[in-house]
């Protein structure tokens, strides 16, 4: 049995990817199971989905704690989500990133594969410019990198079940298969450091919510960040007024400051700024 865990953000298509994959496996005549982790499924929030593949009926019904393959749809998740947690030694880590596989590491050894699925999705116009849908490009790469299902069946699943722009998605899947690069990674010579004890919660445990939510940071939800041109700013405060995340502060002179720990990158401030003093730039 092959177990695959997807990490993405709400809106990127991680859950749909796991379902399309299962459909492709059925077309191959094998058995698959796919299901999402039900968490806070807000657009931009981290989401997880699971797929199991086997030649015989699958009785297991649990979450996948020790996957053979981890698929990361958004490289920004590597900043603060332990995506490789539980990945089997020798397993495969597939990351949507323009960087080469050598730019990433796997302490227990295995294989790392990368492709620029965001670039492919933008080129094929799958999704929107602010929210490219990368799942089909990543599935093409997954087919090529694992050989666990055929690219023919994947394309058939896309044509049969993707509701909008199926042809563009099929092209993205083909591009993904061609673009993926896979490199073996040796285990680190140093034994991985033992996991540090869990950090204490920044508040006492108890039955009541007793701490303000700003102890939680939402910066990882973001794919674009606002950059303010102070010279063009007229201090009209529209950015501060209209921010649904209260992510702006005003300095002593009344100029806006972005509190990047909380900005979710919605882009309202840039769109509403009368002198166009705010630009949304892609997160590195």
């Amino acid at each position, binding site marked *: 049995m092959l177990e695959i865990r997807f990490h993405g953000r709400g809106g990127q298509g991680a859950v749909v990817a796991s379902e399309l994959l299962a459909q492709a496996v059925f077309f191959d005549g094998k058995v698959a199971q796919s299901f999402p982790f039900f968490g*806070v499924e807000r657009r931009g929030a981290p989401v997880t989905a699971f797929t199991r593949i086997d030649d015989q009926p699958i009785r297991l019904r649990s979450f996948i704690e020790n996957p053979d393959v981890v698929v990361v749809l958004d490289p920004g998740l590597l900043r603060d989500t332990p995506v490789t947690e539980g990945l089997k030694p020798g397993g495969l880590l597939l990351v949507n990133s323009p960087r080469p596989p050598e730019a990433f590491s796997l302490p227990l050894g295995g294989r790392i594969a990368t492709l620029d699925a965001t670039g492919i999705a933008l080129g094929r116009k799958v999704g929107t410019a602010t929210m490219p849908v990368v799942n089909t490009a990543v599935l093409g790469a997954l087919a090529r990198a694992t050989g666990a299902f055929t690219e023919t069946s994947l394309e058939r699943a896309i044509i049969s079940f993707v509701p909008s722009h199926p042809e563009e998605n099929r092209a993205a899947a083909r591009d993904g298969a061609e673009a993926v690069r896979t490199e073996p990674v040796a285990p680190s010579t140093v034994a991985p450091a033992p996991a540090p004890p869990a950090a204490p919660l920044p508040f006492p445990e108890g039955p009541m919510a007793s701490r303000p939510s700003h102890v939680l940071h939402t910066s990882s939800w973001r794919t674009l960040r606002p950059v303010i041109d102070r010279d063009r700013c007229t201090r009209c405060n529209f950015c501060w007024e209209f921010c*649904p995340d209260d992510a702006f502060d005003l300095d002593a002179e009344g100029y806006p400051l972005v509190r990047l720990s909380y900005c979710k990158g919605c882009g309202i401030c840039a769109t509403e700024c009368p002198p166009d003093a705010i630009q949304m730039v892609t997160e590195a």
Partner: protein
Amino acid sequence: MAKLTIPRQELMYSGHAACPGCGPALAMRLLLKGLGPRTVVSVPASCWTVIATPYPTTALGVGMLDNAIEATGASISGLRAAADALGLGDLNVVGFAGDGGTADIGLQSLSGMLERGTDALYVMYDNEAYMNTGVQRSSATPQGAWTTTTPVAGEARGKLEPKKDIMAIVLAHHPVYAATLNPSFPEDFVRKVEKARERKGPRFFHVYAACPPGWRYDSDQTIELGRLATYAGIFPLYEVEMGRLRITRRMGQLKPVEEYLKAQGRFRHFSPEEVQQVQEQARARWDDLLARERAANPPERAAVPGEPASPALPPPVAGEALGRT
């Protein structure tokens, strides 16, 4: 430093779990700016229970009661009684419920609270479907809109029935104050909150609350979409005080509804005839409001379209002077 046109104090904290560009999040932020810290909010099952409570924190700088979806009206009646018993007569008691929790599931509870004359403010934030559970139609979903339970495929053309007129239902209870609010007009929004805060008795807000994932538009368009809704007569801004209706955002001419509809994926399937139908409804809604406003004012103070309704109107707020049209 440019003068702020709305209060600076923040009682909604960052770190909450709303989607990027969330209209309901901005609505709560503006509401609490107007109400101040002496406030308790009752929130039923809705997007806002999830937004406010990433475990174990709270996004609200005021007290919050998390209650069952059908019980907002009853719960604020209870909160009011408890506050009065404790001698907290100045406490603002507020219910903050979605359109499903108000116009569908919580309607009897809302009606009871209004009829009993409970001294509390009931806020319906209207994102026009059950967004927290994944975009199922509610009675507040506009006619023709796509939702997951009113699909657009083949002969299916979205929701069949027109949007429920919650303001008409509320006004039939004769509350002391009722108003429509839109976060795209923050000064008007906060002024109405402050006005409601000073009134005793049942008060009601119908708040426009745009939802990027559920309405299918890019998150940076939330404010612009709200402006279009008001300027096109889809969501006119007015208040009703002791039965007297006053329009608070006057348009000499309505914008075409087409721009508003085309901006959202949920209306993208509309034919020119369907657009025309919405256009006629917007026109009729606006004409009806103008007629009701005229009826509420003595003839010598009758409102002239494009001009203030009466000499007693407050001067324009600073936001308008900044060029927000």
